[in-house]
């Protein structure tokens, strides 16, 4: 992960300096209190896990291992964190990762920096030092102070292993490993108070931190949780301002944009190397980076109107992308800002290599795929799967002498009622993008015919990518969808279950604020909905009464 300028290990040290040992020794007793209940359980995503470990133990610690895959729900991988668990194979991976991390932490070259106390002797147990280390890391790893029982179990483990192995650090290693493989670390346990159905302070701290910085709460945020500041709107607002003012906001927003733009799709696609020899290994990663840089530059660095992502001609390219866009590269640094000339026909993210490349076939473009993706990603309108017995032979026959262009071949859908119900929405979008091939290279002819990029969508006529870009820019649903997804990302819900009503006030602020991302983020994070929790589930008296689907209740 890229370090955005704040050295990660200072956070770990800062904990000690902030005198948080007091908190650590408190034995909170959450679960015992009937006033609290677990409102949500969110498995850490891979980047959240890696960033958290890097912040807690320093970026020198190598994290190697395989993570359980996430699933896309309502267009976001983050939303699946609320419904997935951990399989045996997955847990084996987490367990090995935890052990490997813990081994590095207590290793001779790291322990001086990472373990603040020294045992009386390195060859025997030392409950005091072990306790200190476990409390300290337990707090940061569990994102709340350890309970008495949790602390006791670990120090006992450390002592017994230290005794039998004759090495204090071996004991500490396994105690730390037990923290890192605990569900309390691997899942964000979101606890709420039954009194008002809102998240408790520590859960709030986690939600804020993972939304804004994609990592575990820092010392200041944990302190704000401990001293009750996060219980007040004012306290929340101050922390939100602090988190947003930091350069680390970029890390958090990169994670959000990567999810929102579905950039992981590249992992599931391939291109035919005989047809697209330019699509070598580095292209996918470069394309992802281009999109992230463009989005961050526009929405954060220049504090611009988010809708311009549909129309901007400004981007960032490296040498690899320069060859695909067909422009010369200046070798001053690995990435250079670039603005497409007007006649290049490009329009925002719609015509970047990422969007064009991810939603195409290995050997040719697919207006349907592109249309479906645009509807899903930007308009929050997912398309159902095609019926099982579709005959693809006409659309796939690229050598048909009469149906020379893909537009002509797709017309078959327009005439069939079953097909048209979906295809009239998706295909025009994709057809307007047809002057870019399967890897995003500009072309104006297909099989000797000029490519017609005019299209009509819901009565609106437009031409080409620039036309599409304008239509989307002006469509209020784009901003609304963006807001819903940002909210869903933050609270771990499916965007499909986020109604307009839930984000009304945030939308109003967003609109009034010129569609600026920081305005939206602030509005979301300081809204009362952000920390609201569904009421605790009733005890299982009548199970069949109200059949609640998994994510029906929005957290």
């Amino acid at each position, binding site marked *: 992960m890229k370090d955005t300028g704040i050295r990660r290990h200072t956070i770990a040290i800062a904990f000690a300096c902030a005198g948080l040992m007091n908190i650590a020794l408190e034995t909170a007793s959450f679960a015992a209190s009937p006033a609290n209940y677990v409102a949500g359980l969110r498995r850490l995503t891979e980047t959240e896990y890696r960033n958290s470990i890097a912040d807690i133990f320093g970026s020198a610690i190598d994290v190697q291992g395989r993570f359980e895959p996430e699933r896309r729900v309502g267009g976001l991988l983050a939303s699946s964190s609320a419904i997935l668990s951990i399989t045996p194979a997955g847990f084996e991976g987490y367990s090995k990762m935890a052990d490997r991390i813990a081994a590095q932490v207590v290793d001779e070259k790291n322990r001086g920096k990472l373990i603040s106390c020294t045992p009386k002797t390195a060859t025997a147990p030392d409950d005091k030092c072990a306790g200190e280390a476990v409390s300290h890391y337990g707090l940061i790893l569990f994102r709340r102070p350890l309970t008495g029982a949790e602390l006791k179990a670990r120090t006992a483990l450390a002592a017994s292993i230290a005794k039998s192995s004759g090495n204090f650090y071996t004991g500490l290693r396994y105690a730390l490993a037990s923290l890192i493989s605990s569900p309390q670390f691997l899942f964000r346990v979101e606890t709420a108070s039954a009194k008002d159905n809102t998240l408790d302070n520590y859960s709030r701290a986690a939600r804020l931190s993972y939304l804004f910085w994609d990592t575990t709460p820092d010392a200041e945020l944990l302190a704000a949780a401990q001293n009750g500041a996060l219980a007040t709107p004012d306290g929340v607002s101050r922390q939100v301002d602090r988190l947003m003012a930091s350069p680390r906001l970029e890390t958090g927003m990169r994670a959000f944009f990567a999810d929102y733009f579905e950039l992981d799709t590249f992992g599931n696609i391939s291109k035919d*190397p005989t047809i697209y020899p*330019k699509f070598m290994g580095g292209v996918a990663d470069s394309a992802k980076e281009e999109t992230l840089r463009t989005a961050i530059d526009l929405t954060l660095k220049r504090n611009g109107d988010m809708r311009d992502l549909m129309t901007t001609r400004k981007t960032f390219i490296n*040498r690899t992308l*320069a*060859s695909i866009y*067909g*422009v010369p590269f200046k*070798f*001053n640094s690995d990435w250079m800002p670039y603005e497409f000339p007007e006649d290049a026909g490009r329009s925002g993210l719609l015509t970047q290599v990422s969007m064009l490349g991810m939603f195409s076939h290995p050997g040719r473009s697919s207006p349907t795929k592109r249309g479906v993706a645009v509807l899903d990603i930007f308009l929050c309108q997912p398309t159902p799967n095609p019926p099982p017995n579709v005959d693809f032979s006409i659309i796939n026959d690229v050598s048909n002498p009469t149906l020379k262009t893909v537009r002509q071949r797709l017309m078959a859908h327009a005439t069939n009622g079953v097909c048209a119900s979906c295809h009239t929405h998706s295909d025009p979008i994709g057809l307007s993008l047809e002057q870019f091939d399967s890897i995003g290279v500009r072309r104006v002819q297909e099989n000797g015919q000029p490519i017609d990029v005019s299209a009509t969508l819901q009565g609106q006529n437009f031409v080409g990518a620039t036309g599409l870009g304008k239509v989307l820019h002006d469509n209020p649903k784009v901003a609304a969808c963006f807001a819903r997804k940002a909210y869903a990302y933050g609270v771990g819900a499916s965007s499909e279950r986020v109604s307009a009503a839930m984000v009304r006030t945030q939308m109003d602020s967003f609109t009034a604020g010129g569609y600026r991302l920081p305005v939206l983020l602030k509005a979301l994070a300081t809204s009362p909905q952000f920390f609201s929790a569904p009421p605790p589930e009733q005890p299982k008296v009548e199970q069949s009464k109200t059949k609640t689907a998994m994510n029906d209740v929005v957290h």
Partner: protein
Amino acid sequence: MKKAVLVTAMTVLFAAPAVCAPWVRGYVVGNYEPAFYYGAKTGATDPGSDCPKGANPDNNYRQILKTAWRSDDEVRQLTRTVTETGKDPTAVMTNALAHRGFRKDIETYINPFGAPDPGVQEVTGKIAEGFDLDGNAKTGGFTSPDGRRGIDNAYYRVMGCGNSYRGVAYQGYLSNRGNDKMLEGLYTMVVRVSGNQDPMNDSNARVEIGYSPDHIVKDAMGNAVSDYSFRIVKTAQYSSLKATIKNGVVETEPLAELHMPAFAWYETNRGEAVLFKGRVRLQMQPDGGLSGLAGGYQDFRMVYSKDTFNVPSGGQSRETTYYQNQIAMYYALKRNADGIPDPKTGENTAISTAFRFLARPAFVVDPETPAVINEPLTSDRAEIERALFWKAVTTGAISPEPARRTGPRPQPSKDGLQVNNGASPTVASADR
């Protein structure tokens, strides 16, 4: 002349009408080799109009190792097969190959004239690619495939039947090897053509050739990917020539010294080619690529030196792996030298040469911050030997053999020439 402002993307090539505007076209070389005309149809060794007996076979080692002072028995020992020794035959012969002279103590790579001329089969055909370097249709002895007379390419005459060079254009062994290595990143050669009128017809154009520090990107099919950007750097291997273009054919002025990247297929033989009275002819291809021919006179002693003193692939390797005979080559180069007479002796010091190449469209840009090309790696040993050879050949006096390595016995190398315990040529080793 100012570089063009307008840069054309090469993905779509239109039939452009004559237009007066600054223009630039860049290219990256993917195939590069000496311009040797192949007189047969397919393959590499078949008899043809260039070499009626086919490509030159491997040396008869018993013959070439036999000297007045080396007994038949010794020769037999030196030429045992792998079946008899279990060892790489080159390793067995390696020291003897360096001593084939009139006297036992003459190191004959350094002093090739210290051995008799064994002779070499030269090209006897009449067709060759190249240029009429001296402007005299009566000299040269070759006609080009497109009918130009008086082509001067004596280097081809000497080397053209060589087993490792001969073959259909761009398919000879060393050419293939060079292509594989260039595309792997060994070096990058770029060409930039520019003018103010029209790429197909321009009376005031310019051609630049040089190295780029930027690697070629190779696609899954093994070809250089088009449209990548490359910096062109003005190192010793850079030249800029005035040119005129007629119907897509670019002809440059001659330069007293044309410097360009050398044809190379491993680290220690890349570097500089210096062509006296050098010039370039380029042809724009319909697919946006470029084919090129560069010609001039090369100092024949430099040619010999670069070919013979290399690590790991030096004289012995050239002979046993590439089927050459360095001593014969020296004599043949000298006898065929046809240019740049020595002011004192009047003897020609250079031999007419031509190289050809194929290039793909690319963006060739000037670096905005200084960029460096790594000098080719060499070894102390090779440098010492080159210096000794130069002294010998310019004074006519035998140079003594440099001291032997004193370290532990090196293992047989990958290319047949011993290297110092397998250390790469990156390590300058005093005792080889």
